[in-house]
């Protein structure tokens, strides 16, 4: 069997690590240039920590109607779609809730700052809700009502991975994998065969932390199209008054979700759909198992004790994670 050479590049973006694989190594520079341009535009549009971003401008608008770029409108639309498809479990109006639990700066800065002050009492139970976001794609207008504050973290990274993979595949006609902090999108022809009995497709180690090495506890699978995303309560955590909190907000409470799952990985037709489902699964807790099965989404769910459950054709797991 022939092991095909793959061009690989890793770099920092959105406060995490990006990995770019192209099946033709000679096209790696072109692919990287496309990714850099697209990711810079997404960051400029929807970073919550850049005062000059469109998101910051919208959050500071006091409920006014704000003209936005086509890119930002697309990102908002993706977030609203995720909310609608999950009956509001993946809600983009978690901005204020995240600030209340101390996530009000870049995560690297947050970690370096150490423990935050105690949780403030929530002003209202839950988040304002995605229906407080008014979007007019045709005219490029967005309005936040009822004091809603947007955070597009649940969808923007995965959306950007999809966008980069799609653009790179179209421009280079090469197979490509884009991983943004473990949110993975692939496009173009997949590698035919990786040799050593691994079969075709892109090999992905599924585990709790995207920064863990390839031998980290977990499972290796191959994907040939669409996206694979993992959500977890074990990563991107910080201390608040001696209590560990994480960034996945349950819209019903406005507080970090309490889930029976520590990590959920999902494959779907796109990375943003996979990430929508994995995030919703954390929030839905036990009910997620039946939901993912019914939605025919191949998934791997890891309970807090390490027990693994799978749905809808996810290959069997060799043992506890």
């Amino acid at each position, binding site marked *: 069997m022939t092991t095909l050479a793959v061009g690989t590049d890793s770099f920092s973006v959105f406060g995490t*690590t990006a*990995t770019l*694989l192209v099946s033709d190594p000679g096209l790696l520079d072109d692919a990287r240039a496309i990714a850099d341009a697209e990711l810079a535009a997404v960051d400029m549009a929807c970073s919550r920590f850049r005062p000059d971003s469109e998101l910051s401008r919208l959050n500071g608008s006091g409920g006014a*109607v704000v003209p936005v770029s086509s890119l930002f409108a*697309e990102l908002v639309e993706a977030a*609203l*779609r995720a909310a*609608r498809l999950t009956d509001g479990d993946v809600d983009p109006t978690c901005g204020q809730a995240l600030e209340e639990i101390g996530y009000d700066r870049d995560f690297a800065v947050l970690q370096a700052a150490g423990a935050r002050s105690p949780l403030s009492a929530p002003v209202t139970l839950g988040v304002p809700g995605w*229906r*407080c*976001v*008014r*979007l*007019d*794609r*045709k005219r490029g207008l967005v309005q936040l009502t009822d004091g809603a504050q947007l955070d597009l973290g649940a969808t923007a990274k995965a959306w950007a991975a*999809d966008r980069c*993979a799609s653009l790179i595949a179209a421009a280079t006609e090469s197979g490509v*994998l884009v*991983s943004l*902090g*473990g*949110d*993975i*999108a692939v*496009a*173009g022809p997949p590698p035919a065969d*990786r040799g*050593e*009995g691994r*079969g075709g*497709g*892109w*090999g992905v*180690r*599924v585990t709790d932390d995207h*920064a*863990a090495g*390839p031998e*980290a506890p977990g499972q*290796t699978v*191959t*994907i040939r*199209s*669409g*996206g*694979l995303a993992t*959500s977890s309560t074990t*990563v991107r955590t910080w201390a608040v008054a001696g209590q560990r909190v994480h960034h996945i907000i349950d819209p019903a409470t406005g507080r970090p979700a309490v889930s029976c799952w520590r*990590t959920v990985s999902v494959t*779907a*037709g*796109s*990375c943003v*759909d996979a990430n929508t489902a994995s995030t919703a699964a954390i929030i839905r807790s036990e009910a997620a198992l039946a939901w993912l099965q019914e*939605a025919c989404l*191949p998934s791997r769910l890891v309970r807090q004790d390490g027990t693994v459950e799978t749905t*809808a*054709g996810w*290959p069997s797991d060799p043992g506890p994670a």
Partner: protein
Amino acid sequence: MRRDDVRFAAAARDDGIHKISKFTWRAGAAGVACSALIAVAFGHHVATNQSSTDNNGGSSHSQQPAAGNNGGGSNQGSSSQGSSNQGNGGIVVPAQPPASSQGGGQVTSGAS
């Protein structure tokens, strides 16, 4: 009452009835015309709203953007290799499920 007075009164009555009738018909016709105009305008409004929803935008008649639930139906710029389109239907299932593999993988999927 004299006979001429009766005739005059009857003529005046008939003339009044005729005027009222004429006015009523005109008012009715105007009402029908207005109703038709309103119906046409409403139909156009509904059609425009439906079109805006399908295109993920708001109502073109409103000064405000459409509410969040009008936001669906996007092409997410994905690799578009799922088994169906990425529109309003639901989360798109992958074209094929992942396959089991050995070794460490080329990349790692985990939370960040």
